[in-house]
């Protein structure tokens, strides 16, 4: 297991390195230098500015410094927010995004998987139709439609929840979390349903039933564990979906999280900010994929030794 874990972890290092390298060159080679906006600077001042930021060094030296900075958690200065480091913006936004994102992840797991199990066990009956109906609808209703609709209905008209803004209470958090959780919830429900239905057709389930085991035990002990394998390996994409969903949810509900910094950075063409976020989100996605891989290997010995 440990060898397997190390092998998988090592495999994600080149990808991360590739992201970092691509980000560095994207920042350096992008058209328009950082001091383009402050036009009419005397050449000597510009040269001093470039020297202060190390931009007068050869590219390999700059690259080495960028890597060294990353190892210390520094992503360079932001170009659009004055006198602030990108890492400081991340430190400000991350608690907000992590709260909403983790809560949404928990909601979609806790609600989605049982919904899928219920739908599979009640195949063709009401619960199944409700679950598959939700899944189809959510496919056609992206977060940037659901979010404003929820805010309009429950925030503006009914006043049950706040239509936007950030505070650590149910009033402010319920709608963003629901908006973020819905698509992954529907996806997980559909995935669980399909995979459980397939497992229930297997021979060893028939054997378990033939032995006279109570149905509850057949489902919980024999069917569920293998049925959840595809769900586990989908953890990576689910985390990726929550991360990208956070961009929409944070701008719909006006939450001061990393997603909003990323969007504003992209609008202002703040390369260091955008690339810092790309590295951060890329690393988080890689970590989620790795976690899914390890969990999969732990649950299914065939993966470990394959």
């Amino acid at each position, binding site marked *: 297991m440990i060898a397997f874990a190390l092998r998988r972890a090592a495999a994600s290092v080149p990808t991360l390195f*590739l992201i970092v390298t691509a980000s560095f060159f994207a920042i350096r080679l992008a058209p328009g230098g950082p001091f383009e906006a402050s036009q009419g600077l005397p050449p000597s001042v510009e040269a001093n500015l470039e020297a202060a930021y190390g931009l007068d060094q050869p590219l390999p030296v700059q690259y080495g410094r960028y890597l060294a900075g990353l190892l210390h958690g520094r992503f360079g200065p932001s170009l659009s927010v004055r006198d602030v480091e990108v890492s400081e913006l991340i430190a400000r936004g991350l608690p907000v995004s992590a709260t909403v994102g983790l809560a949404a992840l928990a909601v979609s797991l806790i609600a989605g998987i049982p919904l899928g199990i219920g739908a599979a066990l009640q195949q063709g009956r009401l619960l199944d139709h409700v679950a598959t109906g939700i899944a189809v609808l959510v*496919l*056609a209703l*992206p977060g940037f439609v659901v979010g404003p609709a929820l805010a*309009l209905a429950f925030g503006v008209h009914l006043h049950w929840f706040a239509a936007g803004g950030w505070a650590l209470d149910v009033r402010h958090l319920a709608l963003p979390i629901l908006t973020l959780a819905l698509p992954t919830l529907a996806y997980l429900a559909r995935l669980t349903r399909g995979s459980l239905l397939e497992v229930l057709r297997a021979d060893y389930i028939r054997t378990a039933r033939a032995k006279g085991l109570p149905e509850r035990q057949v489902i919980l002990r024999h069917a569920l564990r293998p049925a959840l394998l595809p769900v586990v390996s989908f953890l990576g994409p689910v985390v990726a979906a929550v991360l*990208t969903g956070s*961009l*929409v949810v944070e701008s719909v509900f006006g939450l001061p999280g990393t997603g909003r910094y990323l969007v504003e950075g992209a609008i202002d063409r703040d390369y260091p900010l955008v690339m810092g976020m*790309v590295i951060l989100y890329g690393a988080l*996605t890689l970590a989620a994929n790795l976690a899914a891989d390890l969990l999969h290997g732990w649950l299914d010995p065939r993966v470990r030794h394959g």
Partner: protein
Amino acid sequence: MAEAGAFAAERVAAEGIAADRGLAESRLWARLRSSGRARFAAVTLLAIALAAAFGPLASRFRYDQLDWRHIAVPPFATVHWLGTDRLGRDLAVRLLYGTRLSLVIGLTATAVSVVIGVAWGAAAGFAGGRIDGAMMRIVDGLNSLPYLLLVIALTTLLGRGNPYVLFAAIGAVGWITMARIVRGQALSLKRRPFIEAAVASGASAPRIVARHIIPNLLGPVIVYAALTVPQMILFESFLSFLGLGVQEPLASLGSLIRDGAAQMGSAPWLLAAPAGLLALMLLGLNLLGDALRDALDPRG
């Protein structure tokens, strides 16, 4: 002489498969026509596409024409039958223009992703071995990142506002799943006797890929392409909603939803109309893609 014989053998092999395909196609149409969902989706999409293509011609307003006497009027109250936005622009015309742009971007981005994905996947699958390994490594690396992040990074670097940049960026990252599907199919096709016959008759590798591998991949490629269109439309709307995609005075469904969401308290129709249309379109495209997949699935 020997060469002519070899080509004949190659052609017979290819035609045998083509005849198979003809049969499969007629069965496919029969299945598609019998599906109520597929018919509903096809009719809805056709209506939307026709309206988007020709509707703006029939309207007396332009998409960027300001009407200062009718600012943010509700639907069915004035000559603007779906109402106007905060600048007095006709919502119906902007919706049709937005749908047109969303459809064009969705189809173009899909075409870009199909071309890259099929070429990449077929080449990797047919080459096999170390080349295949290296090519799929790249795909895996890209696949472990959120697509939209790459698109946002690309649009930041290339500058936003240009729709061409937008669909190139979306298509450039959307080919990964296509490449995987095609590669898997190409790997199994490679071992089929008619490919061996083509190899034995001395056909070059590019010729085999172009004439024998790719034509036999059409089924799965069409299905996945059909399912890619709504994804691409969704990407575009997502970016436009965030303000990174289509810019004023142009409109796409995403940018209209963005404008609508900003004034949903005072003018809810500005949000409801584009959101409803986008949802209907995505639903239709997804249903159609699913129906195609079911019709092509031999187990179904």
